[in-house]
């Protein structure tokens, strides 16, 4: 199997990197290119750039920053946020993104996944899923980048995972909302439930607060990668330390 991937996620808003707690109260944490370079040098296996403004605002956004990132990165990166058409996806790929990731627009119009996969190949189509454990079921949420618009779709995450892969997605990022920003570990229960039905590479998101949480998710759920933001941005868990720790835990990792 390929090495497990460590994936820092940069939430981008109005051209700067921000981070909020449970998707709220965003504060600026730095410049996109500087942070991308830092993670490249620290040994990140991939970077996700999530344009949280673009996802909720109904307007054409400037994505030329993608080429500034593509120029400096020698590892793959995905861009997410506000991609509602084949044309918008094509622009981002032309600027140098390796993958595009869609979330709310896929829930609005699931056929978008088929269109993107047919045009660009499944390998560069990632579907992000925001899901919350409401006690009875795992429920998919939409527009989570904006607290005023964020809402439940009422749709089962498990059913959505099945549909997404049938439509030709190449990878799924499952963001577990209960644990996101809380730093108490990945939501093993939700991830394991998704893993059971998911035949695609699955990336865990939401909840990383310690090195042990990464070992835990790789050992307990067969995820291809683990995504995190704040603990990397703050420098609390340096990626080289994390990777050495995972290597000691006998988890296959690229050092």
């Amino acid at each position, binding site marked *: 199997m390929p090495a497990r991937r460590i994936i820092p996620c940069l939430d981008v808003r109005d051209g700067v990197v921000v981070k909020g707690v449970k998707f709220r109260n965003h504060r600026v944490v730095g410049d996109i290119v500087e942070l991308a370079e830092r993670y490249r040098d620290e040994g990140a296996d991939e970077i996700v750039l999530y344009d949280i403004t673009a996802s909720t605002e109904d307007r054409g956004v400037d994505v030329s920053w993608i*080429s500034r990132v593509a120029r400096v990165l020698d590892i793959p990166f995905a861009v997410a946020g506000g991609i509602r058409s084949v044309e918008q996806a094509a622009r981002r790929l032309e600027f140098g993104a390796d993958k595009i990731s869609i979330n709310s627009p896929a829930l609005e119009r699931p056929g978008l996944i088929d269109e993107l996969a047919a045009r660009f190949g499944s390998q*560069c189509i990632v579907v992000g899923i925001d899901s919350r454990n409401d006690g009875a079921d795992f429920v998919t949420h939409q527009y989570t980048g904006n607290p005023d618009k964020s809402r439940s779709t009422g749709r089962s995450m498990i059913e959505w995972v099945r549909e997404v892969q049938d439509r030709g997605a190449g990878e799924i990022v499952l963001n577990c909302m209960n644990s996101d920003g809380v730093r108490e570990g990945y939501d093993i229960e939700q991830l394991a439930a998704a893993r059971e039905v998911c035949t695609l590479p699955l990336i865990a998101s939401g909840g990383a607060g310690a090195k042990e949480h990464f070992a835990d998710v790789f050992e307990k759920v067969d995820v291809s990668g683990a995504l995190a933001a704040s603990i990397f941005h703050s420098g609390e868990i340096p990626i080289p330390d994390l990777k050495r720790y995972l290597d000691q835990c006998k988890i296959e990792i690229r050092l």
Partner: protein
Amino acid sequence: MTVIVDLGCANLASVGYALERLGVPFKISRDASEISAADRIILPGVGSASFSARQLDSRELRAVLVKATQPILGVCLGMQLLYETSEEGDAICLGLLSGMVTRLEVSAVETWPHMGWSRLRQTRNDSRLLSGIDDGAYAYFVHGFCCPIDDATVGEAEYGARFAAAVEKDNVFGCQFHPERSSAMGAKILKNFLEVPC
């Protein structure tokens, strides 16, 4: 001048940026005479073999590439195009290397396509392309079809089955992985290619 062949593929910009980082002048072109006059040719590729093979024909590049005597490097799908045929859409490729590109056979526990960082195992110690690269170094792969292991193979990788991950024969070179996205090891491989005498 190094020319990157424009087959309308998504990783064109990334390959160009990788050369930019190495400080190497290059041109992106779909013009047959420009490509034929190049010192070195890079054939990138993302997408399907049949689509790209049609691009070779519609842009009248097939003859130029088949006759190329300068160093030529195929990247990912570009490497697959160096072979005779591909199972993907029954494409007729360039035939600079013999053999057929086939679908990667994965087991029940593996997902298709192969995507991620896998080890590159070197099979020869006289490779120009892999000179200075550690055996077993990780490279970034994204592909669903693969090239056969034969005497042109200088590096192999495994995902479901073993396949040729790096090849070289005379002036023809290929990487199944993406050197432009394989960190420092990828940059070194591109540099090695750019230093092959032409």
